[in-house]
């Protein structure tokens, strides 16, 4: 089972996204700020990180730079999630080291496609989705 670390400070977004990912066979680890996200990535070595960018304590850009600078976490794919939807926001996330970028509101099939492209193979169980 693939493990995804979700770094998200908004409780409803955490609840909603973690439940939907778990339904599709992913194990979801949770961190509520950027600093905790970095610490949990170092301790748990998840297969992929979903990183909200507007986070307390340490924002997603700084957390991603920190993860990509550390040898033990540099190879973990990071997908930036943000409610900012300008083209400059995408460029900023990629410059910080994110491997991909998606905007809120999440379109789950699109996000799952990005997750599967980065994790590769071993496609998890699918749940029918109307979105």
């Amino acid at each position, binding site marked *: 089972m693939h493990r995804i670390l979700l770094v998200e400070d908004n409780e409803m*977004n955490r609840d*909603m996204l973690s439940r*939907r990912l778990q339904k599709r066979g992913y194990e979801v680890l949770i961190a509520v700020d950027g600093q905790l996200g970095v610490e949990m990535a170092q301790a748990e070595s998840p297969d992929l990180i979903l990183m909200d960018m507007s986070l307390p304590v340490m924002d997603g850009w700084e957390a991603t730079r920190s993860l990509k600078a550390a040898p033990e976490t540099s190879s973990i794919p990071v997908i930036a999630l943000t*409610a900012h939807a300008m083209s400059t926001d995408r460029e900023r996330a990629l410059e910080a080291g994110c491997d991909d970028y998606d905007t809120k509101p999440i379109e789950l099939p699109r996000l799952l496609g990005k997750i599967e492209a980065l994790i590769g193979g071993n496609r998890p169980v699918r749940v029918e*989705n109307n979105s």
Partner: protein
Amino acid sequence: MSELPKPIEEHVQHTLPRKLLHDLRTPLSHILGYSELLIEEMQESGNVEFIPHVEKIRKAGRELVAMMTENFSSK
């Protein structure tokens, strides 16, 4: 009517729409995410009676996102 000072004009034309777009996306994420989750759970449980109603909420939410994207994304 006199022209707005440049910093205010910049704020009205660029900063406000950007902030509004961001702030609207968070509650819209909740509306869309939970309506989609509800639809999934109703499908799984076979309790399909209310799916068309929740689908209307989801569709309205997606229309709002499309309107926001169309009106603000180039600002």
